[in-house]
């Protein structure tokens, strides 16, 4: 059972101009996104830069205004009360940011950074708070003496782990991870990913994993949605997306990922060009006249693809 539903989420940015600085047009950053979150599952949001995936994440947590749509959290409509102190929504949804460096206050010590959500939401005595901080540092695999240090004293991977410690401080239900590893080196990335998987199992966390790296998403997520121009083009289980992609945009994205195997690269290049040609040729079957992606259609219980009404599935 899902504990949280997002229905037809839309985020538009106004473009102002003209004589009285009136709204002349709008940018449709997110245009009708529907998602459901189940406990302990990881959801991937993939797309190219500018497709609206980060905006989706930010609007869910309440850092962006929602134009229309609703967020239902445990049966309650929290769309207009996302940052309010009254609901537990604020505490149960946390975020890990892409750039660990700029998401940590450089003038605060690690203990104060991690303690911030604790002080906001849990009424703990100073002793209990200290114990909690030590506990959190142990979970993310850092020494206790890290408490008194400042963010600049840590490496990139460590900073990202501090960010994670802060996110899990209040036992959240859902963590929105916006490109959590794209700024990290391969071996450090492995460290952070392993660790995110560990705490997911331990605490039954759900993730909304936003990334442009399909390899990472495949490793982490049970359910993947591909986004293009603010809309989902395809949504399905990991298996649906990787073994049976239906939308040409998904196919194009998958063919563009470099494979870690030099054998057969000439064939892959040929295939890539073929897919690219196919993409140009069949464009109108998948996008309407204005270039907008069609509404999602159900292919199986888990697999949804955006196609025109004339297309009868299975290409």
């Amino acid at each position, binding site marked *: 059972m899902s504990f949280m539903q997002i229905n037809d989420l839309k985020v538009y940015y106004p473009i102002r101009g003209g004589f009285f600085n009136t709204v002349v047009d709008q940018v449709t950053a997110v245009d009708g996104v529907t998602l459901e979150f189940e406990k302990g599952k990881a959801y991937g949001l993939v797309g190219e830069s500018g497709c609206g995936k980060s905006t989706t994440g930010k609007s869910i947590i309440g850092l962006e205004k929602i134009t229309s749509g609703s967020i239902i959290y445990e049966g309650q409509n929290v769309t207009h009360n996302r940052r309010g102190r009254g609901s537990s929504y604020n505490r149960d949804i946390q975020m890990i940011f892409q750039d660990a460096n700029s998401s940590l206050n450089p003038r605060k010590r690690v203990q104060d950074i991690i303690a911030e959500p604790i002080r906001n939401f849990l009424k703990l005595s100073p002793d209990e708070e200290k114990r909690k901080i030590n506990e959190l540092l142990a979970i993310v695999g850092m020494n206790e003496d890290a408490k008194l240090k400042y963010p600049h004293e840590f490496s990139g991977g460590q900073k990202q782990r501090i960010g994670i410690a802060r996110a899990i401080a209040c036992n959240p239900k859902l963590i929105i991870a916006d490109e959590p590893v794209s700024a990290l*080196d391969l071996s450090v990335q492995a460290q952070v990913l392993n660790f995110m998987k560990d705490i997911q199992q331990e605490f039954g966390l759900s993730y909304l994993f936003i990334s442009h790296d399909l390899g990472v998403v495949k490793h*982490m997520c049970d359910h993947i949605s591909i986004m293009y121009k603010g809309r989902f083009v395809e949504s399905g289980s990991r298996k649906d997306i990787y073994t049976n992609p239906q939308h040409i945009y998904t196919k194009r994205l998958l063919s563009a990922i470099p494979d870690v195997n030099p054998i057969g690269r000439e064939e892959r290049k040929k295939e890539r060009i073929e897919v690219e040609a196919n993409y140009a040729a069949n464009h109108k079957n998948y996008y309407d006249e204005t270039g907008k992606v069609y509404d999602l259609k159900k292919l199986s219980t888990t697999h949804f693809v955006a196609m025109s009404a004339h297309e009868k599935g299975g290409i």
Partner: protein
Amino acid sequence: MNSTEQLLSINNLHTGFRIKDTYFDAVDGVSISLKRNEILAIVGESGCGKSTLATSIIGLHDHNKTRVEGEIIYKGINLAKLDEEKFNKVRGEEIGMIFQDPLSALNPLMRIGHQIEEGLAFHTKMTKEQRDKRVLELLTQVGISNPARIAKQFPHQLSGGMRQRVIIAIAISCKPNIIIADEPTTALDVTIQAQILDLLKDLQAETGAGIVLITHDLGVVAEVADRVAVMYAGQIIEEATVEGLFTNPLHPYTRSLFNSIPQMNSENEKLQVIQGIVPSLINLPRTGCRFSTRIPWISEGMHEENPTMHEVSPGHLVRCTCWQHFHFESEEGGITR
């Protein structure tokens, strides 16, 4: 034009940065060569010295703060000892460079056409008309469909992929023999990345230039490179053909790296984590195997005292002897610090 002609040979290159009157070598004894018609990939994590190696080749270091020693032989000249004035003739004309971030590499106040023309005006005796024509040719060559319009635009009017194409056009404008590409696709989306890599490969086939590709992405290496050198802490620790390295990685570092890729065909498995962190330049032990601290379960005696490159099979070189005894620590206790 001989296809196996040696274009560039680097011998025992040391590039050091000055910190309080002491020089610390970021590139520490690198020897490698580049042939015509070849893409040589240099792979490593951040801070391993791969970009320093690139900037040493093209001479972009501040001589007051940097020390470049050793040999970078190109056409019989040692570039490491070349003075600035003579280097200006080499840069752009003989060696072109493609930078990582196309927006910061382009001048925001100059039109695209003018920026491409700049190198031509400096290095060639072309007239203005010839140069204008060449600019349009170059833009077409890098796959821009309406060159006349793009040439009149400013960098901010172009998308990231287009800007990177312009950077490539600038790099190849004087038909250099060597192109250095420092993370050319890191700032781009995967679909654009694939296009740019294909473009680089096609251009190389046309011009026969040698390309030094600096990257941290092993996927990119597998797609385009002919030969690969893996760097760790300022040294090359393994060098092989791309097939050799990907089918039979030998050095513990290379093997660990391969195991830490979240591969497209692996699910739910634990990723390999390399213990410890890359030692900083200042604290780097300059003797012994530099990777030994990160594989502590391999005993001291397995490493060489002064690790050198050993040719294991033709063209496949590995530093130190520890690879012969290396095995993964089977029980990796979760998170390592």
